[in-house]
């Protein structure tokens, strides 16, 4: 599918399979604001997670409307959009954190490596071990740094010995770029660290369980620019081993760290595409309005 097709199709833009970077020249005519069909490259060939027709309701209110998107292996997928657009809600569907909200119902299909995670037979405990999560506000346990990282491996019984556990803790803290700062005070409380260190501790805690996918919900929103830069570097490194889905308010951040970007607007997934393309040549008028700062 090339440029011409896109234009010829008018309002019904790409919903089929596409490859990254297929559209590289500037599109003159944007998709109309009223049209909420997803445009761009929603689907990829080597998908780790596939979401089809996902709807989320809080009671009677629909928070997510028919979202279909793939998460590719070892990519960083950024989800951007104005406040209340449902990007965090959607993120929390990916490891069923929304189960904890009584009134929340999820419809549709979300597959991790081909298995429906919302299937009745699926246990959320191993699912969350596979799909780890880092939250908006750093939330270390009020325990020692060591115990924070060791908690996941311990409850899952990943380790058999203390030395093995020590290894995992060191390895995870190294991956989170925190080892050099805390190696001599592992028994101090994790809550005593600075905000940026706490967030990296939370990343180390998520990594320690050896997940396949890591979900990050605005991990830098509570951090200063220097701590943010450290965490961003870290995300870029983690990408080599993990698939990362990150929600962010910060478009520069999305541009810096992600390969693909998804733009959510009031519960609709409006556009997905290669990050470079989204920020230089959005297909949808709403995307352009958002990234040029007209709202949000």
């Amino acid at each position, binding site marked *: 599918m090339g440029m011409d097709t896109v234009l010829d199709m008018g309002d019904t833009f790409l919903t089929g399979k596409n490859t990254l970077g297929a559209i590289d020249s500037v599109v003159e005519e944007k998709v109309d604001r009223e049209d909420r069909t997803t445009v761009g490259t929603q689907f990829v060939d080597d998908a780790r997670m596939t979401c089809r027709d996902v709807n989320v309701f809080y009671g009677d209110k629909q928070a997510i409307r028919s979202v279909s998107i793939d998460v590719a292996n070892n990519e960083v997928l950024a989800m951007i959009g104005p406040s209340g657009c449902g990007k965090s809600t959607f993120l929390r569907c990916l*490891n069923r*954190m929304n189960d*904890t909200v*009584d009134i929340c119902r999820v419809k549709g299909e979300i597959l991790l490596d081909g298995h429906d995670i919302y299937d009745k037979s699926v246990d959320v*405990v*191993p*699912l*969350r*071990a596979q799909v*780890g*999560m*880092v*939250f908006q*506000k750093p*939330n*270390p*346990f*009020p325990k020692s740094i060591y115990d924070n990282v060791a*908690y*996941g491996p311990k*409850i*899952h019984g990943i380790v058999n010995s203390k030395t093995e556990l020590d290894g995992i803790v060191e390895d995870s803290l190294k991956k989170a770029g925190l080892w050099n700062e805390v190696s001599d005070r592992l028994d101090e409380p994790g*809550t005593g660290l600075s905000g940026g260190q706490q967030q990296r501790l*939370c990343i180390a*805690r*998520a990594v*320690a*369980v050896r997940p396949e996918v890591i979900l990050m919900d605005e991990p830098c929103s509570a951090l200063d620019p220097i701590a943010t830069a450290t965490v961003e570097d870290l995300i870029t490194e983690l990408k080599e081993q993990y698939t990362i889905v990150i929600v962010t308010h910060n478009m520069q951040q999305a541009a810096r760290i992600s390969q693909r970007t998804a733009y959510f607007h009031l519960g609709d997934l409006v556009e997905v595409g290669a990050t470079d393309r989204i920020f230089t040549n959005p297909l949808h008028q709403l995307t352009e309005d958002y990234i040029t700062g007209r709202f949000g």
Partner: protein
Amino acid sequence: MEKQTPSTMDIVNRGLARRYRKEKQFKLLGLSAIIASLMFLVFLFGSIVANGWTAFRQGAIYLDITFDEQALQVENLRNANYGKLIKTSMAELFPDVSGRSQTRRLNKLVSSGAAFELQDMVLSDPGLIGTTKLVRLPVDDEVDMLLKGHISRDVPESERRISDEQIAWVDQLVEAGRLQLEFNTTFFTAGDSREPELSGIKGAIMGSMFTLLVTLALSFPIGVAAAVYLEEFAPSNKWTDFIEVNINNLAAVPSIVFGLLGLAVFLNFFGLPRSAPLVGGLVLTLMTLPTIIIASRASLKSVPPSIREAALGVGASKMQAITHHVLPLAMPGMMTGTIIGMAQALGETAPLLMIGMVAFIVDVPGSFTDPSTVLPVQIYLWADSPERAFVERTSAAIMVLLTFLICMNGVAVFLRKKFERRW
């Protein structure tokens, strides 16, 4: 001439003095309220201590007792006439006292319980027989009151329960160094008694302890489990709303109603023993449960949801998130609530009256099913007694009860401070 409109600053400045005056008045009002309540408190404690501190001292008489073989009839130590030993000793001290009634008045100076003390001494050490020994014995409560100055020598003889003659004997004994006030150990080692000088609060303390043990053992686990279920697991529907409303209502039910319930259910239906700490504990459990559940739920609610999310996010099961993270963080609040509930239970009288813990019980209870009484009920019983010596004992028992309550609240504060975690 054009009328000048005042500037905003002028208007503000004009009202300023009034505003500050209002603030000052409000502050003064608050301060006077604090002072008033402090004064009430000081008055309360002051009157209790002033009335009660003398009860911690007790008159004791030192007599040379000859454990005479003939008088004791060695073959039957249990039924021997120990009172005779005391009478002999007293007669030796006051050789000029003669006649039946005068001798009886003299012997009344010594407590009627003194003979039992001698019996206990001989039974525990039969080697005493045949020897003479200086023995410390309790005096009668009227003599005790006289020594403490609660009986005035100025009132006419007919209006006091101790005669001029007896006062003269007492003065002689004091002069001889045989009669003096000493620390009142009986008060802490004896059960209740009809004789004030022989009565103590050990029975009530033990009863309170057994009762509170039952209450704690039942209400803490049940209360915490109920709170955890309601807060963490229960689906939010009209049933849980109904339960919640009822728990809150239960906290406001007058405690005597729980006593009636205990009487109807535990005593009459289940046939549990009357006056037993076991039943008292069950009744007080019913009474403290709402307090503990409400306090525990509040402390569970105060655990930040981010901690729960963090635990769930690394794949902890709900149970693990609760037992590993939420409960430890909520525990200080739960313990505080429990101790406050316990303190409430310790001071409770009304429901225990209903299940017979108001009986006059001399023996110190040794188990959960022995008949017993508790501290506040003991205070109630003593307050009802006419003897002057029971007045000071009433106040002294209140002081002991208050000490326990203050200690329990102190422990609650300590636990909260120690286990409180910040994040």
